[in-house]
């Protein structure tokens, strides 16, 4: 489950943990079995061109929604030259 984040004002905001986001990012690639660390480029996991990038972002959005949160696909960093960590961080930061 997403963790709760406290702010000083007392409000509690649900958010994804970094581990959850990394699992989502990797699982949404065509070849998640090739995962070999957060510095790995997404091209090595099968994110090759525009079609895969669109599908990757969609897969992430579906998984984030399943956790009770939402994310705009435009806020997700994905592409063959983007590494898992950068993509994951964009998901953690923008999933609300």
């Amino acid at each position: 489950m997403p963790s709760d984040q406290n702010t000083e004002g007392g409000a509690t905001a649900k958010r994804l943990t970094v581990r959850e986001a990394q699992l989502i990012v990797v699982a949404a690639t065509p070849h998640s079995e090739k995962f070999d660390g957060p510095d790995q480029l997404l091209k090595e996991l099968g994110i090759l061109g525009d079609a895969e990038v669109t599908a990757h972002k969609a897969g992430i959005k579906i998984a984030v929604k399943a956790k009770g949160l939402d994310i705009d696909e435009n806020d997700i960093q994905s592409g063959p030259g983007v590494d898992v960590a950068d993509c994951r961080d964009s998901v953690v930061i923008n999933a609300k």
Partner: protein
Amino acid sequence: MQSRFLTCLFFLLATATAFCQSKEFSLRRIVTASIEGDKVVLEVSTKGPVPSTVNDPKNWKIQATESGGDKRSLTIHSDEASCDCYDRTTNPGGTNVVTVKAPKDKFQPLTLDGASWNVEFSDGKYLLTASQPESSAGLKAAKGRDDADLYGAFSFLTGVGTSPIYTIDVKGGYSWETGKIPVLKSIITSPTGRTGFFVDVQTNTDTKAPVDRTEVDPDSIRAFWKIFGVTGFGAHKPYSLAWEIQPAGGEFSRSNPSSNFIGGGKGQLVIVPFSNIPFDFNPLLGTELGTNLNKPSTLFDQPVNLSNYDAIVRLLAGADSNFYIFRKPISDPDDPYRFSFSASYIARVPFAPEPFTRSEIVTDSTGKSSRQKVVQMRGNTRHYVTTTFNWNATKLLGLQLGYKYGSLPPLFELVDHQVTIGFVFKAKFTKWHSVPGA
């Protein structure tokens, strides 16, 4: 000989430096900043091999800056630091994120609500800083016309003996999530579903000087309503299905009096069959349904009989495929390809006769022969093949080879084995392009 040796040495050193740089430890950003009980907790994302010194809290400093008022700032040492370091065997779910904590009361008297955070890591070897990412603007630069949501190209031609000619190429559209639209919400249940209106207008594209009067006449207008989305299958074959429904759309042309009302739908699978070959294969199936809106008696200065051209019912079948060779290393995520090869095939199978236009030698009543475009109503399958080869020699210069064969609606003018070779130069001004705060 000596200069060749020096060139090779320089190249090797440059490659080694780039390789080493990419493998160096660095901090990416602060991913999260929160207050948990009496602690300020920051999660710092790292890059490269993580040294064990990251687990020493004395190596970390945290800086808080108030969001309002005098924007006071305070820097203190952390009192806890731990890394969730990736290891293929012992911690395969590791994130290489360091959690840095500090007592909240040490930041007194700052107001921490809405504060911005920075961290500094210093272990005697590295001196690194990281901050929270800034929120992105509503508009970002697009790679080109096809990539753009909003696009406008405006040119102006003038000279002696001609009134100005304005050429305008405008494309725009906006889509919303179907889940946020009351009626569609219950029909389209896909979380990735979107719907929107899109317009594409081109004016004066064929006008040549001189002209006596300045006019802005639309040559081509396309307007359509589209519902689209992607269904992902994750790490399976196929990988995903991109689907699209076009309930209504219109295509109008001024150069030829042809216009169609078109709707339809299509689905395209994305398949990445191999884990070690950068190749994809994307089969497509769809339909185009609509009606012809006008029946001119002549087209291309030739008489035509379009009396039985009414309904448009077509089956679409085809596939596209891409093969990529990436740069080594990829220094810019927006420019990853050294070579790319794309091929696309689409067949349109009409269920009712539609115009088909070929270039033929026609002999007129005076016995003079000339090449003319001849339009016939036929029920044949319309093929369209394109292949493109791109070589991005440098970030600025590239070579593009293209091949086309086949025909496209509405008049299906046959492009007969067309080969194009082009050089591409692409650059942007770093100073003017990156407007601060944009």
